[in-house]
Structures are given as C-alpha cells and as structure tokens.
C-alpha cells in the first residue's frame, strides 16, 4: 500500500511540477503583461519597462523579442499575448487576420543602412551591393527588415543583382548584424538603430542612398482577447505617447 | 645437433609477469608434441614461432632462414614467415564458405580465385570432407571444422606446421578416430610439425617426441618411453603414468 501510495504521490508531484513550470515563476503576487515586440525594439522597450512597472507596481512586463514574422505567426496560432509591436504593416495585418488585434497605431520610424565589417572601405553605397562575388546577408523575405531591404534595392535598381549575392537569409535583424560583425559576410542591410552598443565597434555604416522613401514604420496594437485590456491599452499609450517617444528617440528611432 | 634445414628456436618472450624461455632444435620432418599444464606457455610458444608475440631475446631460424633475431633487429611478420598455423578453436572465417576458408592462403598469395577454389576443394576431399565445401563454418560439425582448419593451414605447403590443441574441441567418441587420421595426414606432410596439447594421449599418439613445458620453461624432452622411465619432474611422472 505504502509503495503504491508513494508512486501515486510521485505522479501528482510530477504533474504539479509540469503545471508549475507552465505557469510562469513569480506569478504568485504579480500580474504579467506579455508584450511581443520586434527584435529591433529590444533596447528601447527594455528602457520603458522600469517606468511602466513603477507606475503599475502590481504588473510584471514580460517581453518576447523576435522577428515580427515569427511573432505574427505565434499570434495567428493562438499564442497568449497582450500587446504586439511589429516592425512593418504587413506582419501587423497578418496578425490582424486572426481577428485578435485592436486597431494599430504607428509609433516610430527607422532608417535602413548598409553595414560592413569595420575596416572594410570597399562599399560606398547600395550600387556596390550588386558587385559580383560580394557576400551579402539579408533578413528573410518575410522578416520586415528583409522586406524593406528588398524594396530599397528595387528602388535603386539593384534588386536582382544584389539578391544574387545573398549567401544567407537570417530570421531577424540581429542575425544579419552578427554575421557581418563576425566578418563572415561582406555586407548586410539593417536598421540604423541596430548599429549600437558593443557591436557598433565591429561595424562600418554606409548610408542607403537613393531609397529615402522606403521608411521602416513600426506599429503597435493591443490584443482584443487580452485578459487585462486596461493594462494592455496603458502600455500601448505609453509607447505611443511622449515617454515612449523620448525612449525611442534616445535609441535613435525617428518620430512617426 | 643443429641442422640448417631444420628449426632452431631460442625463445624468450615476456608477457607481463609471465616469461617463456626455452631452446630447442628440430630436424626436418620431425613431429613433436608440446605438452604442459594450462598456463605453462604452450600457446605463447605458438605465437612466438608464428610471429604473433615478439621475442625479447633469442632467435628463430627455419630451414636456414632467420625469422626473428632481436639482436640483429630481424623480425619477419606473420605474413612473411609462411607457416601453417591451426589455431585453438580453429578460428575459421565465419562469413566464408569452408572452401573459401581453405583457399584463403592461396588467394593471399595471388592465386586466381577459380584455381584457388579448385585446389581447396581437392584438399577438402583429401581430408574426407569434400561435401562441406559450400557450407559456412557455423553449419559444420566439430570434426568437419577441424579438417577444414587443417586444410587451410596445409594448403600452402608450409615448412613448419603449428597445431594448437587440434583435437581439444572434439568429443570423446570422435576423438580416437580423429587422432589416427590426423597422425596419418601429418606423416604425409613434408613439414616440421609442432603440436601443442594439454592431453597426454593426444601428444603421445601424434608425435614421436615430447617437449614438456612447465611455468614457461622446458622441463623435459624425449620419447614417451624415455620420459616414463626417468621422469624429470612430478608433472611428467603424473601425466605419463596415466597412459
């Protein structure tokens, strides 16, 4: 009897552990606000976290940073989230196809730049990306920065030649930065805001001239099925409001 | 006593704590049995002669050809020695037919497959097992496997035949006949035969002369009658007393 009872209690313990792990730690006394945000927003949004939590002490903001296409796919697949910040309209619209999104607002803009490894001065502008034999890394076609880069290359008439030089399609903008900084690629196209912090020293930035009208624009929206709509709306307001503008401006983003 | 045509063996082998040290010479055509208790060094002797265990001192000379002499840095590989060895438990190649087992030595010497197989078949027939040519070793009886192993060792007509416990794997009922047949085949072979055995009956029946090894040393040499008359050790007295 004792043995079977201990086996049974083992099963219960195991079940408790599994369930306990799926309910995030620290949830006992705080509400969690799940924010799915584009990878390029990582530093700016992290800056905003402390202020929001100070204003709402009962809340713990939990970020999920990834390529917007991954986040949109998660939302379409029903993943729980309260707020979605996308790096382009296409992925926001894709997420909205799930009927889970509130109307979106544009809250920031960015700029495309070409990066090369530091010390390489052979690339002067977008036309050089079409040079035969160049090893170019872009984000994938579905990744916002990859879509912007293709559009910009199209604008300067180098799309096909440059795409022939692509050696890898990365799944988010940080993947592109990493490959170029490591010297494994000759050039990449990223957001200006990504050339920051420690990695900036390993990169040289070249302006993406001739595609000024290709302007990356970020959109944010609360999820309609958020269990805490007021908090979700408050976070969206924070990002789109003056505090958000200041934090984003400090990290190099442009006003909408 | 040494004849350049025969075998001169001055052997010193170290295997961990164990050492084998003995000297003997054999005339061409001689058949001797190496007798001794388990662990006396009989199989080490076979390995040393075959080139599978290096001498640490001494020499092995067969028909005027030096097979090994550490002092002169001479050490022929097992391949170069061209001996016939019948291993304890036979060590047949399990994935080959009996015929291909026998043909192996000829194939290794570059003989064409068809000719090697024909000759192997002839050897099997000579040893009375012509019908097993296509069988794998796993399908052979103990007696059949023994003859296949013997044919494999003899097909290259070696100048020295080493047989390690050639009868040990046979059951008692088959043993007396096998002993007689083996003695006949060895007599026909124009080779020096060294037969290792722990069974005194096999040793006496197969060989003219006995070499007795105990704890790595040669303790007696002579015909069965000589050793029985004046046994130099208790072991010799005990085992020859049984016959």
């Amino acid at each position, binding site marked *: *009897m004792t043995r079977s009872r201990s086996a049974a209690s083992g099963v219960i313990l195991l079940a408790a552990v599994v369930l306990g792990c799926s309910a995030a730690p620290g949830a006992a006394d705080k509400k969690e606000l799940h924010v799915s945000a584009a990878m390029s927003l990582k530093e700016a949004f992290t800056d905003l976290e402390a202020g929001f939590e100070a204003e709402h002490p009962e809340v713990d903001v939990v970020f999920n940073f990834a390529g917007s296409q991954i986040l949109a*796919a998660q939302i379409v697949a029903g993943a729980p989230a309260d707020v979605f910040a996308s790096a382009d309209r296409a992925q926001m619209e894709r997420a909205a196809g799930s009927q889970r999104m509130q109307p979106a607002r544009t809250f920031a803009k960015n700029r495309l730049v070409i990066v090369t490894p530091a010390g390489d001065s052979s690339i002067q502008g977008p036309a050089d990306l079409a040079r035969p034999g160049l090893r170019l890394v872009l984000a994938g076609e579905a990744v916002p920065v990859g879509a912007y880069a293709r559009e910009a290359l199209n604008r300067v008439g180098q799309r096909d030649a440059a795409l022939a030089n692509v050696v*890898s399609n990365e799944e988010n903008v940080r993947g592109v930065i990493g490959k170029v900084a*490591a010297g494994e690629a000759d050039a990449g196209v990223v957001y200006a805001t990504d050339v920051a912090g420690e990695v900036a020293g390993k990169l040289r930035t070249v302006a993406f001239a001739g595609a000024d009208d290709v302007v990356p624009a970020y959109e944010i929206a609360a999820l309609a099925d958020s269990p805490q709509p007021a908090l979700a709306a408050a976070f969206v307001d924070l990002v789109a409001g003056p505090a958000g503008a200041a934090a984003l401006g400090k990290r190099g983003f442009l006003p909408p | 006593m040494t004849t350049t045509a025969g075998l001169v063996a001055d052997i010193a082998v170290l295997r961990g704590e164990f050492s084998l040290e003995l000297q003997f010479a054999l005339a061409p055509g001689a058949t001797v049995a190496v007798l001794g208790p388990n662990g006396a060094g009989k199989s080490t002797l076979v390995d040393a002669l075959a080139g*599978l265990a290096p001498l640490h001192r001494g020499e092995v000379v067969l028909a005027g050809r030096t097979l090994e002499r550490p002092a002169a840095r001479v050490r022929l590989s097992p*391949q170069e020695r061209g001996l016939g060895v019948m291993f304890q438990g036979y060590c047949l190649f399990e994935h080959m037919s009996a015929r291909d087992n026998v043909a192996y030595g000829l194939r290794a010497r570059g003989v064409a497959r068809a000719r090697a197989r024909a000759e192997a078949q002839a050897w099997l027939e000579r040893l009375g097992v012509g019908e097993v040519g296509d069988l794998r070793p796993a399908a052979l009886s103990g007696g059949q496997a023994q003859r296949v192993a013997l044919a494999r060792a003899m097909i290259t007509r070696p100048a020295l035949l080493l047989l390690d416990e050639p009868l040990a794997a046979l059951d008692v009922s088959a043993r007396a006949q096998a002993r007689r047949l083996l003695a006949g085949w060895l007599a026909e072979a124009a080779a020096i035969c060294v037969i290792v055995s722990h069974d005194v009956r096999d040793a006496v029946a197969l060989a003219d002369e006995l070499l007795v090894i105990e704890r790595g040393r040669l303790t007696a040499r002579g015909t069965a009658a000589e050793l029985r008359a004046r046994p130099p050790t208790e072991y010799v007295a005990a085992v020859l007393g049984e016959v």
Partner: protein
Amino acid sequence: MSLKPGRPGHAHLAVGLLAGAAVVFFALPLVGLLVRVAPAEVWRQLAAPAVQEALRLSLVVSLCAAGLSLLLGLPLAYALARLPFPGRGLARALVTLPMVLPPVVGGTALLAAFGRRGLLGGPLEHGLGVILPYTTAAAVLAATFVAAPFLVITVEGALRGLDPRREQAAATLGASRLRIVGTVVLPAIRPSLVAGLALCWARALGEFGATITFAGNLQGRTQTMPLAVYEALHDSPDGAVALSLLLLAVSLALLAALRGHFFK
C-alpha cells in the same frame, strides 16, 4: 515500508499509468502532425519548388556527410579500437563530444575554425581562395561534424568486440593488413557498419543548429529540410507540416530497416 506480498496490483497500476502517459506524450505530437493537414494538401505542398529543392539538397548534403563520415570515420574507429597511440582517450572524448554538444555550439566552433576569420578559414581564403561558410560544402561539414560520431562509436564498439585471433589467422596465411581488413574485419562488423552508417545518415538528415549557424540559410544552397521546416513555420505552416511528415516517414522507414540490427 509495509510490503504486502500478493498485492502487486497497485504498483503495476502506477507503472502502467506512467508508461501510458509516456506513450501518449510521444505519440500525440505525431498524431497532431497527421491530422493537421489534409493528405491532398500535403502532396500539393511537397510538390512546391522550394520544398523539392530542400528535399534534393537534404539528400545531397546528408549522403555526402555520410560518405565523408565513412571515409574519415572508419580509419578513426579502427585507430581508436586497435592502435594504442598516446592521447587515445582524449581523441575518443573529442570525437564523442559532438554527440552531446548543442549543435549551435558546434556551428559556432566550425565558424571559429573554418570561418573567414577562423583558424583555418583565413589561410584557406587567402591561400586557395576557398570560402567555406554559406556554401553547400559548409552544410556538408556541419552535418558531418554532428553525425560522424554515431558511425565512429558504433564501428569502434564492433571492432573492440572482434576476436583478434581471426585476424591473426589471416596474417599467418599471408594476407596483407589491407586484405585482412577487407576480407575479415569489414565482413565481420558489417551489421554494425550498416547500422552506424544509417544512424549517421539520419542524424545528418535532421541536422539544423550547426547548419544554420555555420552554413546559413539559403534556398537551394544550404537550406536543407529542417531549415525549410523552420522557415515555413512562420510563413507557410501547412508546408512545414508537410515537410515534417516527410521527415517523419523517412525516420520511420529507417527505424523499421534497422530493427534487425538493434533488436536481433
């Protein structure tokens, strides 16, 4: 502990429940794959050019990796099993490492060795003009790095289990070392060799982490099936399921074919 004999029912029940839960845990994801997409849609997805290309590339990369593993792994297994060289234990540990190493770490390490700023990559690029990262060759190297140990370990185990007397018998019969390996050693270890090669190939076919890190992700050049599955997950979930089903079928076929070797 009061152990009452004759009442094993409860213990058996507990074991049965846990075992049943385990079976459900392993089977449910596979069932999920199967019911997710209609069969007709699976066929349509598999006919897509990108999928066909990933399939072709996966076959090329995994077969090349298996071949390279055989070429390098067989002598290595032999050396580990038979040649008492100094540092043999260390060599075995190094070879086994990729089996337990996270593949993405393997990819990073490959970059550190064969990347353009890696130990060998610089000399390769400036001396021979060879740049490995982001090429199909890099995908083959990545797959070989993670898959070859399966072949080496399996074959080494078989070689260790082999009775050296048979090889000695062949030597006394005059066979050269090479002939002995070809006529005695390889036939004797053939079942293990086949099993090791199959495991190696399967691992190469499924390789993801080291490939995406070292070889990147480019359709037709380095985007093998697992990479295609991952990418498709975000823009064509049905395609991802179709590709997954194909990989699942290959794995099942391999398992069925290997049954004889592992459960003889």
